[in-house]
């Protein structure tokens, strides 16, 4: 076995592939592409990502970020001097983001999530706590001046919409809402909303899910990855497998329970060579906002979507991960790491193959995984040199820059790791 690892790791550091494309029997509508080659990378200390500028938000705690073009939208969270009912709109064309406008979302204490539709026409904001809702804004006129189109709320979303992700299936736009639990009687749930008529959103599906939370989803190519906390990651067919499943009638393909649970968010990586074998899972452990956090990045191999397996992980002492963004062309995953700033990780190649010295066996489960840090994949760290405490909620890579939403300070613009 060790010889096999050695052979696998002896190749050059190119971003190639090996073997034929894979069409999994559990989802014949998806081509997972060839298996990526394994890479052997030298160990070197991570670089510091260049800080290009920042925009200050001192009255509210900043939440998630969504960037499109030269504009960034950042949400706000809980109560500082004011409550988190505001979405800040930043012009990020220069080095330092400039606050150009904002939107107040009524009846919200937290506007925890924000997303822009793939066509740039809609901005969707999730609100907590009760009455949980999504606010749908029209960006097609002036994206600096979002116009409220509709506010969707019902009994199913009432406890609070934790996240709202957007995805297009067969040309139709949907929002995937992760709903908070409430008390003993109302468990967490996933609600799917048809946004094809954004002025009148329509719920098309609901499922109780998560133990005890469902915190986020990730939709791509008709597969929906659902973050189910201690129930792990579900992979749902919502139209990608060609079986007739749809957002209105999803089909569960598979599930994986990552080590430690606490599954918060997912990103399914498509590399430039067409390989789609790996997804990245964020674990949201406990923390003290502004001071500490916990939780690793877990890498799952979905070559068999009906039985994904965890193959690798990334750990930072004293800090935990939150949301991701991926520069897929260059194979870099950017992770918000709360008090740990931003982490850039090289995710090219086969992440399931590593030398024995790069493997770590989990004490609780006995499972062995590759350690991305020991594999030399920690490329860069952002905001460790910010000169003040940071607590990074979200991150987004766009055209060579990385934008980070910092709960304490507002928004940062960083140079990409490569």
């Amino acid at each position, binding site marked *: 076995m060790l010889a096999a690892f050695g052979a696998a790791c002896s190749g050059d550091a190119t971003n190639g592939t090996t073997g034929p494309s894979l069409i999994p029997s559990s989802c014949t509508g998806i081509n997972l592409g060839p298996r990526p080659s394994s890479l052997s990378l030298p160990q070197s200390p991570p670089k510091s990502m260049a800080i290009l500028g920042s925009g200050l938000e001192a009255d509210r705690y900043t939440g998630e970020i969504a960037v499109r073009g030269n504009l960034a939208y950042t949400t706000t969270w809980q109560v*500082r001097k004011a409550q988190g009912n505001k979405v800040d709109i930043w012009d990020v064309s220069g080095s330092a983001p400039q606050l150009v406008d904002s939107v107040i979302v009524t009846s919200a*204490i937290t506007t925890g999530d924000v997303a822009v539709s793939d066509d740039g026409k809609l901005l969707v904001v999730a609100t907590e706590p009760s009455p949980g809702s999504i606010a749908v804004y029209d960006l097609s006129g002036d994206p600096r001046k979002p116009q409220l189109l509709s506010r969707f709320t019902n009994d199913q979303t009432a406890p609070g919409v934790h996240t709202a992700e957007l995805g297009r299936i067969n040309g139709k736009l949907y929002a995937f809402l992760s709903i*908070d639990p409430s008390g003993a009687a109302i468990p967490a749930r996933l609600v799917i909303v048809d946004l094809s008529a954004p002025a009148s959103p329509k719920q098309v599906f609901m499922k109780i899910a998560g133990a*005890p939370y469902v915190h986020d989803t990730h939709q791509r190519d008709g597969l929906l990855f659902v973050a189910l906390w201690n129930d792990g990651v579900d992979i749902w067919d919502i139209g990608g497998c060609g079986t007739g499943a749809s957002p209105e009638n999803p089909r569960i393909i598979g599930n994986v329970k990552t080590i430690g649970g*606490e599954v918060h968010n997912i990103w399914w990586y498509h590399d430039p060579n067409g390989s789609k074998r790996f997804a990245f899972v964020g674990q949201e452990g*406990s923390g003290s*906002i*502004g*001071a500490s956090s916990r939780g690793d990045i877990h890498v799952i191999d979905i070559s068999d979507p009906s039985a994904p397996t965890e193959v690798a992980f990334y750990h930072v002492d004293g800090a935990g991960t939150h949301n991701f963004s991926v520069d897929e062309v260059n194979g870099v995953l950017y992770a918000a790491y709360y008090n740990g700033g931003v982490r850039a990780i090289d995710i090219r190649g086969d992440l399931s193959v590593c030398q024995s010295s790069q493997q770590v066996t989990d004490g609780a489960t006995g499972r062995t995984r590759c350690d991305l840090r020991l594999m030399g994949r920690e490329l860069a760290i952002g905001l460790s040199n910010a000169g003040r405490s940071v607590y990074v909620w979200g991150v987004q890579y766009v055209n060579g820059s990385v934008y980070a939403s910092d709960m304490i300070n507002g928004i940062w613009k960083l140079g990409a790791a490569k």
Partner: protein
Amino acid sequence: MLPRDSVVAQNISVMAQAIPLVTRADPTATRSALTEGYVSQPALMAHGSFDWLQFRGTLNLEGLTLKRGELSTGGYGEGYVDRRHPHAYIHEALIGAQRSIAGFEGSVFAGRGFAPFGSDDPMARPFEKFPVNHHLAQVLERVVAIAAVRKGPVIGEFGLFGGDEPTSPSASPNFSRFGDSWSARLTVLPLSGAEVSGSMAGVTSPEVHVGHGLDQRKSSVVARFSRQAPDSWRYGLLEYAHTDERELGERVNTLSSILGEAAYCANGFVVAGRLERTDRPEEEQLADPFRTPRPANDLSNLGISRWTTVTASLSTPAARLGIAAMRPFVEVARIAVGHGSPAGIFNPELRYGATRMWMVSAGIRLRAGVMHDRMGRYGVALPPMDMGSGVPMSHPMPDMPGMSHTSMNATSVGKCTL
């Protein structure tokens, strides 16, 4: 058959109480002063015995009178903050058996009630306001089974229970979780009227009804003294309580409390003082600043705050009419709040507009029937009461048929009965 058994026949006692009061908190979570009136601690208590079988029940009606919670600056728990939450309607409902075998006295109790941990319930102590440390120093309203053994001056207790705390006064416990938590308490009675106890507990996911929340490892050391005569009473309690919150077996938060309180009664006047310093985990808030989501939306907190409270209380002699009594009182608390460790983003100036606060209450304790001396111990775990002679009233007197061990811990009449 031991002599003791021959004198335990039928016994039943019933008590009703309520405390109408007015409280002014200045300032409180609204950043302003609030004055409110309530009927606090309305309860019906009963205990009875038939031969070796015993019953204890407390119906707490705060769900009807304190739905919004009672102003209690610094207090927290069960989705309330700076207000004390209403307790469950079924505060206690236990049946048990008590026997003497081979020189040991033993008892077993089961039902809903107090786990054997920490100090007496604040409801049975000299102050109307609960201390901040209620959720560090007691474990109550759980589905529990307790075994206790007493030999001479030593009492040992062990309890198995479900870790879930109530989600509302009327919510059912999660019976499937029975046995996921435990506690043990060792009590030594070195002198008449004095006791020293140490206890430990492992409480699984108390704040998430279905499980998967942070677990708690708790410890407590309590020294208590109470000596009562028909027209006087001396009481003192010194307590240290500590809770580690754990995630995946690792400690993530530490919360400590030290509390001392004393009371003295002469000629019916009761003067009491309490000094407390307690750590409190800060949580997200709902639209109502006195409420927090239950369950919380994740496992993080906003930091730890540290509360130092000095409370003084004065009660005038009770007016009695038959079995009913009414005792007016006034209670004043000076409260200081600062950063605990870690401070996180908690900022008392932002939340309260101040770091020093007052709380003043005035009310009347209304009571009818036989007062229960202690709350939180069952069967042989209930130490004997010193009635002022220096001789503990731990055993029924041979010439007092019908009076059980338990009933001797009920103070029927006295100028100093609270």
